Structures are given as structure tokens and as C-alpha cells.
């Protein structure tokens, strides 16, 4: 676990330090009209949706699955949330709860749908979730009638734009979901079961684990996370955009999970690593915006950073380039051979 986190953290720090060259005050955090502001807080705040869906995605990936539909679920959740309160003029919090409840329940159901297709019907995860990836956006647009609906109901903005104890509220949401995920997976046997199913589903079944339900649960959780992320995004801009909300988020989320050290082959998962992975992606994005990289080179920069992170995490690469392996040859070897040989 420690070594898994080491390189991602280094990269994160590196990206942040690069910012320091362009902006001396990058690390400073100040109190402005009762809100803590600063680049670091911004990154956390902006990264909240990505962190959330990455947490859900981590568990899905740990079962050897993948969830491509999260981007569309974000759009659906935002659309439902925003449409529920779109015509509300009142200031009470009733409609807010209604919006939150409705969209989260639907996202849970939608995630469950993915889970059923994967676990009960036996559809390959990538295709099963592709269905919703395509159709979900259509449903979101259906809900909004293809418009970008603006919400004028103030309380709604609290989810993604509010502050609590001087910190953005979304940071608390992320912290809560993260803690819940950690508690559920590490303080109960759920994490063990997920890793077991992801590592060898047949053997897990024979050991008495209900693999099907575990998979179902994991997709439901991912749907829920995406739902929360959708509410944050939509509330932050006080509108619902069925077509563009959460577009291509699924790829960033998968990227975050992998950077965090979880293998797409299933098995061990690292929630903390995922959060760091998501933060890397978010800081990279923010950095690109603020240091004035020309828009057309954004993607090239991103590609290079992704590659560097992955290479740094590769034991083979470190051995060849830094010669670390020469000092401790067998230590490095384990990573590779251990995977392939029983």
C-alpha cells in the first residue's frame, strides 16, 4: 500500500510545485468573506465530482468490471435534480430534499440495472454499461427537453456551491462518501469479498461468496456516486445540461483509478490511491488553464503526463532507468513474476 501511493503522491506534488513557478501565491490559502479560498481549495472543490465517480469506479474495477455509464448518469442525475426544482420559487428546503432524494434513488436504480445486466444476464461489463452510456444521455435530454434549464431556486446551489465551516460543501460530501466507502470496505468483509470476486470469481463462488450480489452492489454504488457527482455539477452551475454534463468523465475516472494503483484486471483496490489519482488529473487540468497552455495542445500535455505517471509506477521502468533494480534485483522482480506465476 505504501509503495503504491508513493509515486502518485510524488507526481501530484510535482504538478503543484510547477504551478508555484507561475504563481507565487499558489499554495496560499486565505479567508475571504468567510470562505477559505486558494488554488488548493479550488482543486479540491472542482475535483469533487471526479473523485466521487472514481471512488465508485474503483470498486467496480476491483471486481474486474468497468462502468462506462457514469458520465451519462451524471447528466441524468443533474437533469432530474434541476428539473425537480426548476419551477420552485419557494425558499424552503423541501424541494431540495425532494430533488436530492429523487435523483439519488433513480441513480441507484440505474446502477442496479447495470449490475443486473452484468451479474444476472452475464453481459460483459463494457457493453452492459455502454447501453446506458448511450441511452442515459438521451434520457437526460428527454428530461430537460433538450434545453439547458436554469434553476433559480437558491437552496439548490448549496450542494455544489455552498460553504460549511469556511470550506466548500462539496468537499464534505466527498469526505463523507470516501469515509463511507472506506468503512464499508475495510471495516466489514465487503472489501475482502470484492477483491476476492475480482481476483478469482469461480473460486470465490465455491468459497460461498455471493459474487452476483457483490457485483450488483458495486454497480449500484457506482451509480450512486455518479448521482451525487451529477447533483454537485448541476448545482454548481445552477442548470441542467443533458448533452454536455459529465461528458467523457468515465475515461478520467478510469484513469484516476489506474493511476491510484488499482489494476484493471481486478483484485486489490486502493481507495486512497484513487483519490490521489483524481487529484492529479484535476490539478493537471487546472494547471493547464492557469499557466496558459494553448488550447490545442491540452491533450498532448495530458497524454505525456499520463504516460510519465504510469511509467514511474512501473517497476520495470524504474529498474531500467534509475537502476534501482541493480541494488535490489529480486525485490523488483516480484512485481512482475508474482503476477504471472503461481
Amino acid at each position, binding site marked *: 500500500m505504501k509503495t503504491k501511493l508513493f509515486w502518485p503522491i510524488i507526481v501530484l506534488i510535482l504538478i503543484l510545485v510547477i504551478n508555484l513557478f507561475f504563481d507565487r501565491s499558489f499554495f496560499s490559502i486565505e479567508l475571504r468573506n468567510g470562505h477559505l479560498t486558494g488554488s488548493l481549495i479550488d482543486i479540491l472543490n472542482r475535483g469533487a465530482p471526479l473523485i466521487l465517480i472514481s471512488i465508485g469506479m474503483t470498486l467496480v474495477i476491483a471486481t474486474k468490471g468497468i462502468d462506462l455509464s457514469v458520465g451519462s448518469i451524471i447528466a441524468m442525475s443533474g437533469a432530474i435534480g434541476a428539473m425537480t426544482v426548476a419551477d420552485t420559487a419557494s425558499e424552503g428546503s423541501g424541494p431540495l430534499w425532494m430533488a436530492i432524494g429523487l435523483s439519488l434513488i433513480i441513480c441507484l436504480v440505474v446502477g442496479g440495472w447495470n449490475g443486473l445486466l452484468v451479474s444476472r444476464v452475464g453481459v460483459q461489463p463494457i457493453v452492459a454499461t455502454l447501453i446506458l452510456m448511450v441511452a442515459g444521455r438521451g434520457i437526460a435530454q428527454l428530461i430537460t427537453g433538450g434545453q439547458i434549464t436554469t434553476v433559480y431556486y437558491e437552496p439548490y446551489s448549496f450542494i455544489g456551491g455552498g460553504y460549511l465551516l469556511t470550506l466548500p460543501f462539496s468537499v464534505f460530501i466527498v469526505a463523507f462518501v470516501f469515509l463511507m466507502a472506506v468503512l464499508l470496505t475495510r471495516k466489514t468483509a465487503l472489501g475482502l469479498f470484492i477483491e476476492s470476486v475480482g481476483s478469482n470469481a469461480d473460486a470465490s463462488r465455491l468459497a460461498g461468496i455471493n459474487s452476483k450480489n457483490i457485483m450488483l452492489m458495486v454497480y449500484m454504488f457506482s451509480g450512486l456516486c455518479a448521482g451525487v457527482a451529477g447533483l454537485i455539477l448541476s448545482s454548481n452551475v445552477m442548470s441542467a445540461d443533458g448533452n454536455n454534463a459529465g461528458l467523457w468523465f468515465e475515461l478520467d475516472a478510469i484513469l484516476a483509478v489506474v493511476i491510484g494503483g488499482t489494476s484493471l484486471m481486478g483484485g486489490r483496490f486502493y481507495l486512497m490511491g484513487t483519490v490521489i489519482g483524481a487529484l492529479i488529473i484535476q490539478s493537471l487540468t487546472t494547471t493547464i488553464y492557469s499557466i496558459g497552455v494553448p488550447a490545442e495542445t491540452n491533450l498532448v500535455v495530458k497524454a505525456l503526463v499520463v504516460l510519465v505517471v504510469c511509467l514511474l509506477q512501473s517497476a520495470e*521502468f524504474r529498474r531500467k532507468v534509475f537502476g534501482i533494480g541493480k541494488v535490489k534485483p529480486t525485490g523488483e522482480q516480484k512485481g512482475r513474476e508474482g503476477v504471472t506465476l503461481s
Partner: protein
Amino acid sequence: MNRLSLDYKQLPLVATISLFVLMFSFGSLRYTGFFSTQVFLNLFINNAFLIVIAVGMTFVIVSGGIDLSVGSVIALTSMVTASLTMEAQLSPFIVVPISLLVGTVLGVIQGALIHFYNLQPFIVTLAGMFLARGLSYMISVETIAIDHPFFNFMANSQIPVPGGNFISISVVIALIVVFIAMFVAHFTKFGRNVYAIGGSEQSAMLMGLPVARTKILIYTLSGFCASLAGLIFTFYMLSGYGLHANGMELDTIAAVVIGGTLLTGGAGYVAGSVVGVLILGIIQTIIVFEGTLSSWWTKIAIGALLLLFIVLQRVIVWRSEKKHANG
């Protein structure tokens, strides 16, 4: 014994083909003008490039990997082709080989990174996807129209087929690629090695197969197919553009998986992927013929048809598996 006889392994493939026939009949009954050879041939004309990348992707997925870079490679190839033809004024005899090299080189690099540094294909090719698209923006953010006799010829020639219908040159190229790929997959060592690696990379290594070479070759092949598809796409569009084929990697993966290839590797057919492409094509055709769907209903309908198809496929496979077990 006879490898051509209907094998239990080929079940998903058979299921897919029958469902294709079913969908085509459905369209024919529902819409006038649907039941025509040209509608069927249009599936090939409109999807020639998709067929070519699906072929490359089939090898990758059968080997247990994935290649997300193909869509962007199409964009990059079209961009390179267009800028070399129109801005550098080079002859097609130089432009075409260079364009084909674009994806091939990227494929070699991706394959090498995946193998030697033990990186996950998903991530390496995701980086490749960002890189290729980024590079095409860097060539130009605007579209470059191609006006060159060679390209016009490739784009506009119609090869007549009996019955007053026609196909395009690209279709011929795509079909040739398919046949070569089928041969490679089933009648060459390389092809068998791909299946073995997909079954178990560790076992393949212990059996003394050239895992490194094969893996790098697989990604090279996929890169090459993507470039070739990029060329076909350029013929189709007669332009280079950084936003071309956005998201096409997912269409490709969907086609391959629908065609019966297992994403976990080790099983699948090139022919299946072709049928997979045709299925995606026919879903679109049905939607166009329907002609009344709003944007969002279009998306929902695509999803629903995809679902219908996948569930039917599962049911057929299940039932025959049961029969197989009982027989």
C-alpha cells in the same frame, strides 16, 4: 474434426448472424424501401473504415488487451494525409505510405510500452488517444479539405455490382483486409499465438511462445489498421480534421464485443466483428428510416436496440449451452 463444421465455440457468432438477419427482416417489413440490395451494400460503404479498425481491434481484444487510440489515429491520419497532400503538395505515392506509418509507429510504441514496462493497455492506449488527437490539433485546428485527383477518384468511383447497385473502392479494401485477417487468425502461427496469449499470457510464456514479439505486433497491427481506416475515412470525407472519428473507439469495441469476442481475451472471430459492425450499422439505418425520432429518442433507441440485441444473444447462447450440456 472438420474445422469448418459448426462448432460449439462458434455459437455466439451464429447467434449474432441470425440476429442480424432478424433485424434486417424487421426493417424490411416495417419500412418501404428498406428491403433492397443497396441498403445492404450501404452498410458496407458507410462502415468500411469501422470494419477495418474492428479487424485490428479484434486481434487486440482476443489477446486480452484493448486499444483506445484507434479513433484518434483516424483523425491524425486524415490530418497528416490532408496536410501533406494539400499544403506540402506531395504525391499520393508518398502521402499514402507516410499516412499508413502514422498509426503503425504509434502502435509499435504502445505495444513496446505495454510489454516491456508491464503497463496496462487501457492506460497506454488512452494516452495514445489523447496524444494522437492532440497532435492533429497541433497540425491544424481547422479542417483541411482535400481536392486531389487521386483522392477524388478513390472517393467517388463506384464499382457496379449486379442489380444496378454499387459499392465503393473502400469496401473492396475493407473486404480484402477482412479476408487476410481471417487467414492470419486461423492459419498462421501468429494468429494462434494471439489466441494463446489471450487465454493465458503466463501459460503462453511458459509454453515458450514469443510473447513479447507477438504482443508488440498485435498493437502494431491494430495501429496499422487504424491508419488504413484513417485513409479510408479520408476517402470518405475528403478532408482532414482533428475532430474526425470522435469516440469511434467505443463503437469499435462495441462492434467487436457484439460480434462475440470476449473482452477478457482468448475467444472471438474476425468475421464476428464484421457482423458486429453491420449490426451497429443496421441499428442506425433503422433509426434513419424511422425518421421521426428526436435527438434524445435517437440515443434512447440506439441503447434499446443494443440492449435487445445483447439480451437476445445471451438467451440464444444460454439455451444452446444447455442443449450442448444435455446432448
